[in-house]
């Protein structure tokens, strides 16, 4: 166990006299195990980032208990932060300094000597595939490169836990896959990964275990496979109908297949079923003629929809 929270609450004071206090995290419990990849999955505003900030010891909990690396963030914040790495969503690099200077500055914050930083920089820039960019200013780097540099920087103190807030938001698909590969290597080296994401594919790719958050609470937890097994059928049939035809189709299906869960989204309906192809045949037998039909395996997106009645990315 590398971190543990019980009844964790975060309430922010009102921004001004007219507003009221805002509770971003409303009593969450979780346990992070050494060496695993743990995810906080949820839509924007679910309380993921606030939870991460408390683990990172940059935001004191309002209530509840939190232990990180066996210490109390309220009294041992410096010591804990010395042993964790943080990859913020906005990169937070100094774009006017060079790649190497950004690592030097950050290493100095941890009290590392110039020589130690220089030694580690070589290895980290290789790892981040940025060796050739060492002398360039950060402003000349692409979004994917910056994110990899931020990860390299977060490793300068050889952290035991790496906290990543929305690590691939805003990156193109290729850059995301490069990043996932790097994170997977880190996990193999024994670094505990803790990440937030609102991408279900990212959570499925990276996380051994995850919690689903919504409205400041944890609504489910387990491995991706466990969550899917517990909250969804094995397959999903997605049907799209012509404009104005969906409502009637949903009505017809719900009357004839009372045991199946059918979700209506603005642009399509989702039919939760063990056998997608059989369901499609049944739909045709009912006289329905969807514009498109897709049978797919259930994903965490379906878990989230089942738990909250909403999709993750609106």
């Amino acid at each position, binding site marked *: 166990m590398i971190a543990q929270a019980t009844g964790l609450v975060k309430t922010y004071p009102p921004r001004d006299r007219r507003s009221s206090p805002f509770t971003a995290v409303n009593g969450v419990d979780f346990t992070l195990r050494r060496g695993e990849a743990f995810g906080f999955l949820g839509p924007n505003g679910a309380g993921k980032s606030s939870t991460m900030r408390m683990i990172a010891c940059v935001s004191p909990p309002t209530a509840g208990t939190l232990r990180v690396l066996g210490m109390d963030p309220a009294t041992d914040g410096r010591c804990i932060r010395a042993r964790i790495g*943080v990859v913020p969503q906005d990169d937070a690099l*100094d774009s006017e300094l060079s790649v190497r200077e950004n690592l030097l500055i950050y290493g100095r914050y941890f009290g590392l000597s110039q020589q130690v930083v220089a030694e580690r920089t070589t290895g980290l820039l290789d790892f981040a595939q940025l060796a050739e960019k060492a002398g360039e200013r950060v402003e000349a780097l692409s979004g994917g490169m910056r994110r990899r540099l931020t990860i390299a920087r977060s490793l300068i103190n050889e952290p035991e836990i790496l906290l990543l807030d929305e690590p691939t938001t805003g990156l193109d698909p290729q850059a995301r896959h490069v990043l996932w590969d790097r994170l997977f290597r880190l996990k193999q080296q024994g670094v505990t990964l803790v990440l937030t994401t609102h991408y279900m594919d990212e959570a499925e790719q990276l996380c051994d275990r995850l919690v689903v958050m919504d409205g400041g609470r944890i609504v489910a937890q387990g491995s991706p496979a466990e969550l899917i097994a517990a909250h969804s059928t094995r397959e999903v049939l997605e049907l799209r109908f012509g404009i104005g035809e969906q409502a009637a189709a949903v009505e017809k299906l719900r009357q004839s297949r009372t045991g199946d869960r059918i979700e209506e989204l603005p642009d399509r309906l989702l039919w939760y079923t063990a056998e997608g192809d059989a369901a499609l045949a049944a739909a045709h037998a009912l006289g329905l003629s969807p514009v498109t039909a897709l049978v797919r395996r259930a994903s965490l997106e379906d878990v989230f929809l089942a738990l909250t009645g909403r999709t993750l990315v609106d």
Partner: protein
Amino acid sequence: MTTTAVAPDMALRFYRYLWLHYRRNWKGTIVISVANPLLFLVAIGAGLGTLVGSGNATLGGVSYLAFFAPGMLAAASMQNGMVESAFPVSYHRMPGRAYPVAVSTPLEPVDVLHGHALFMAVKVAIGAAAFCAVMFAFGVAASPLALLALPAATLTGFAFAMPVTAWAVTLPDVRPVQTLFKWVVMPLYLFSGTFFATAQLPDALGHLVALTPLWHGVELCRTLTLGTATWAGSLGHVAYLSVMALAGYLVARRNFRRHLHP
């Protein structure tokens, strides 16, 4: 948040970052912090000032240049103290900038405050030193006490920097900073006895001016430079400016913690 494992150099770690950052940005600020005051000194003190007779009693019997230069030193230090605090603090405290990055490492908000405050003090001192060098070259110093004008000007700048720092760390963007310069810095600059003796003002206004911090800075620098300083007067000015700096620092400590570790 308490401070376990305090390393004495925590604040210096951030201080050194600011110098590295400044190396890339010095061109933008050198004009306002060093060149501007010197141009004023030459144009108004040595140029326009020749039109003012040196026998003018309100100036205390010295040349206008000798009267104006130490006043300008204090006013320029005030401006430097504000420029070094208002813009950088409100800039660095934004998401993704230097403050949030530093406080996610072993540094605490108070270390960031100390490191930045030291940087401000050094920058104000450098500006004041450059100004003093030119001022002395003009032969303005009338007493060895004039050397004390350098720490006096630095204190003046720092006394402004600390409250402004405490305020700037709470700002969501830099717009209020521009308002500060328009409505606070400019009037103080013009009416705190920099350009003319406040004795020339109507009584009510003169008393009001004597309450303003810049007036104390101007009087301190001027009396030291001209060798007319008294113990009581100087200690009073120093006390006023020190209390202002200390009060600002204490509020800044609290605000840094609240805003950087919310």
